[in-house]
């Protein structure tokens, strides 16, 4: 999948190309987009990702954004392992947003999945060049040399020379041809598949990591923006006099909405911006604005009415989705028992601890920004488009992200900052308040699903009808997209882990009146909730153990090949379920008022099974234990994977217990953490994580797959505890928190 081109040295410039899955890492000689790797005196830079100094220090470049998923450590460890670099000399530097690093879009749990192999090759190529350099120096054959822990060793004499002492010689060596690069065998891994602590621990525990909101540059102004409470509403009139009188406020500026072209980019909502000499004055000035709004066509949007409408629509036939099979009507006729249920998930918002923010400096013919961005290249392209500045004159510095969860994939806050910097001719930092974040996001859509299932006498599921309606993410890029897209339905609906001979999926119309976006696990939150809740209902109807029914439904061992290089393997799905059942002592008797529930899900090409134990006292739920098994193929950094799954359990709990965004007259009703609540440490259960040993399989997703199972497992556990079936989230609305 990857190609490294051989390139000869030319003067002080070395070119290096590695194309991977259609993306370009480094430079391709045949392309006219040549990127040069600056050659620094005394530093060996075999490619864009590695800098080796004479003192032995190695700087590795992280091309993906760090938002808590540990990617800086994980990617660097893969390069270092193949390079045979000693971890104690390694430091990590964040790449700017630039196409020369290949695709940098950090979402979809895809970083390790897509660039582990290219990163390993970067390290392996460097190691080969260092070995070649040492062989030359010793005047021996390369085969008589090996690299080990920052040294090249002469295997004939046991002489060794440190990597740092090979810098000058290695700089003269040509980049090896890709087909000559050999990657390590699993048994030889030193860092891959082991546990490495975050390279950023020291900064995280001393308050010295620079997040977007911590960026400080000379003469920086701070801005807060008042946006219309109703999506896409505009300013009718504004009285700025009180705001202007606020201490610290320097200027008040109207900002028009920046409308994205159909099909791409995010634009900006517009509103009234208050520029001040500190963040708080900007916030205060914003509160002192008197604005009259034109609410526009979304004013009538009431989320509860909308959900009622969806609940009606799912009772009617929808658009038949490709991938349906068999004949459900015949199946239902043949069935001994037929049950139906309707499930609902509300709108949700990401609420990362660091609010959206961006620092921008627009100067005559160039733009520089500093921001917590999941997708810095799209931000760069978006800025080039809206501000008509050549892309090469736009520098996108990626800071640490204080959480992302999909919110920071959308660069609207960067567009705002650049627009303001251009207007005031000074560097400016736009900071959203928490209320702004809750009220003006790109929301995870609400969904309503109707399920109907038929069982025979033996508890065999004969037919499965599923109607699903939720506003599509596509609507944020293409107005009037009133049905979920195929890409969205392919997140757990068309590709559920089961083998059901009579299966029908129908797409229900759902229009959008909010900006719809993606949130950690995306549509899998809906499919995971609907599928697992319904299997549990079928199991209780058929009086079959839910784990057994899941196993029956997964069926015989089979491999389903899709478009990707990761086929679905039903055997692996069953393995994780059996692991979780064993770990949780599934089937054992529980204390009074305790219950256990199970859920499985296949997402981002990973297999997850989770069991949750709850206790219910006086109608209030406490989550006691969570047991999760993941099969994510090659496990790059084990403790980091455990941390991700522990976090996913807490994130999933917040969805199950508290998460709900609602609107009245088009405006979001929630404000801050007091009415958009989060799981806190007092509610945190014991979390037990198992990782399947699949080091010979390609790596698959980790950041998201642990989330979709949590809410259904909790609700199934509640049913097991007290016989109450929760079909609509969150539990706080059921009075259960």
């Amino acid at each position, binding site marked *: 999948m990857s190609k490294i081109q051989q390139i000869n040295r030319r003067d002080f410039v070395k070119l290096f190309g590695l194309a991977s899955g259609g993306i370009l890492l480094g430079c391709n000689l045949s392309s006219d987009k040549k990127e040069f790797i600056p050659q620094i005196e005394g530093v060996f830079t075999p490619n864009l990702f590695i800098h080796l100094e004479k003192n032995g220090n190695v700087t590795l470049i992280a091309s993906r954004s760090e938002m808590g998923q540990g990617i800086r450590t994980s990617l660097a460890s893969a390069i270092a392992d193949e390079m045979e670099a000693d971890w104690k000399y390694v430091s990590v530097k964040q790449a700017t947003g630039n196409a020369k690093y290949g695709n940098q879009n950090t979402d979809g749990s895809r970083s390790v999945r897509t660039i582990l192999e290219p990163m390993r090759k970067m390290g392996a190529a460097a190691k080969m060049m260092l070995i070649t350099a040492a062989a030359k120096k010793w005047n021996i054959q390369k085969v008589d040399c090996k690299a080990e822990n920052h040294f090249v060793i002469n295997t004939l004499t046991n002489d060794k020379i440190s990597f740092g002492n090979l810098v000058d010689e290695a700089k003269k060596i040509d980049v090896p041809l890709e087909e000559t690069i050999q990657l390590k065998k699993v048994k030889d891994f030193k860092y891959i598949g082991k546990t490495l602590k975050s390279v950023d621990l020291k900064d995280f525990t001393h308050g010295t990591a620079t997040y977007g909101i911590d960026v400080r540059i000379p003469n920086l102004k701070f801005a807060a923006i008042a946006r219309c409470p109703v999506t896409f509403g505009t300013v009718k009139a504004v009285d700025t006099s009180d705001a202007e009188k606020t201490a610290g406020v320097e200027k008040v500026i109207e900002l028009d909405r920046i409308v994205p072209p159909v099909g791409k980019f995010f634009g900006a909502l517009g509103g009234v911006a208050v520029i001040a000499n500190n963040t708080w004055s900007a916030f205060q000035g914003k509160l002192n604005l008197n604005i009259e709004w034109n609410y526009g066509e979304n004013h009538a949007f009431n989320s509860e009415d909308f959900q009622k409408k969806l609940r009606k629509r799912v009772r009617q036939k929808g658009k038949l989705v490709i991938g349906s099979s068999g004949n459900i009507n015949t199946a239902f006729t043949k069935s001994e028992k037929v049950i139906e249920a309707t499930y609902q998930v509300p709108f949700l918002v990401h609420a990362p601890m660091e609010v959206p923010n961006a620092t921008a400096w627009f100067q005559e013919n160039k733009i520089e920004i500093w921001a917590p961005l999941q997708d810095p290249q799209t931000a760069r392209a978006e800025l080039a488009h809206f501000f008509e500045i050549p892309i090469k004159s736009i520098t996108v510095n990626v800071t*640490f992200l204080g959480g992302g969860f999909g919110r920071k994939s959308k660069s609207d806050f960067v567009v705002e900052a650049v627009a303001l910097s251009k207007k005031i001719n000074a560097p400016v930092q736009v900071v959203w308040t928490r209320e702004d974040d809750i009220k003006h996001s790109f929301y995870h859509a609400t969904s309503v699903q109707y399920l109907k299932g038929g069982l025979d006498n033996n508890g065999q599921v004969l037919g499965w009808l599923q109607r699903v309606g939720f506003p599509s993410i596509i609507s944020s890029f293409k107005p009037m997209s009133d049905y979920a897209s195929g890409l969205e339905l392919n997140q757990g609906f068309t590709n559920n882990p089961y083998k059901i001979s009579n299966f029908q999926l129908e797409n229900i119309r759902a229009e959008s009146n909010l900006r719809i976006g993606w949130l950690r696990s995306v549509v899998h939150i809906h499919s995971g909730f609907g599928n697992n809740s319904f299997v549990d209902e079928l199991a209780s109807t058929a009086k079959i153990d839910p784990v057994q029914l899941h196993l029956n439904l997964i069926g015989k061992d089979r491999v389903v090949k899709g478009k990707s290089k990761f086929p679905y393997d039903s055997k692996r799905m069953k393995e994780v379920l059996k692991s979780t059942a064993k770990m949780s002592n599934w089937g054992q008797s529980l204390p009074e008022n305790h219950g256990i529930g199970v859920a499985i899900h296949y997402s981002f090409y990973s297999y997850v099974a989770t069991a949750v134990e709850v206790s219910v006292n006086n109608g209030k739920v406490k989550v006691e234990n969570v047991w999760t098994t993941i099969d994510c193929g090659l496990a790059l950094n084990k403790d980091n994977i455990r941390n991700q799954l522990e976090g996913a359990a807490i994130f999933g709990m917040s969805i199950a217990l508290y998460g709900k965004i609602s609107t009245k007259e088009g405006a979001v009703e929630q404000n801050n953490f007091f009415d958009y609540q989060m799981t806190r440490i007092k509610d945190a259960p014991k979390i037990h994580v198992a990782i399947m040993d699949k080091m010979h399989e390609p790596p698959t997703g980790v950041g998201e797959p642990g989330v979709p199972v949590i809410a259904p497992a909790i609700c199934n556990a509640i049913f097991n505890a007290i016989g109450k079936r929760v079909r609509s989230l969150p539990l706080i609305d059921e009075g259960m928190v």
Partner: protein
Amino acid sequence: MSKILSINGKSYTVDVQDDMPLLWAIRDIIGLTGTKFGCGVAQCGACSILIDGKLIKSCSMPVSYAVGKEIFTIEGSSENLEFLRQAWNDVNVPQCGYCQSGQLIAATSLLDTVQNPTDKDINDAMSGNICRCGTYTRIRKAIYKAVELKNQAT
């Protein structure tokens, strides 16, 4: 109006309105950005600091309150904070890291007041701090670890 604030043993003169929250004086005026903004309404604890040893949410406490008092932030150092840092490192607690300044300050306050905290002590002391990444299991483990490290050292 000019005021003197003492932070981590160092004096800073700031010229701000009396009602500016400490958080913003510390971050924007003095330039110590380790203390974080999370909610602005004392709900998330990202902005936690100690004032004369007492745990305070700096987003909701005016500058005037701290004049003449000693402010302690994540940029500072104390015996308990250092044990906690070591434990945070040993347990590999953080994910995105953003809330961890506040978590560490709240945990410092806990260890400053309770020598051998129980689960309930931890819940009571740490439930004002939100971690959206969900590192609570590790935070709890690391607090116990810090106590262990401290007991070993003395």
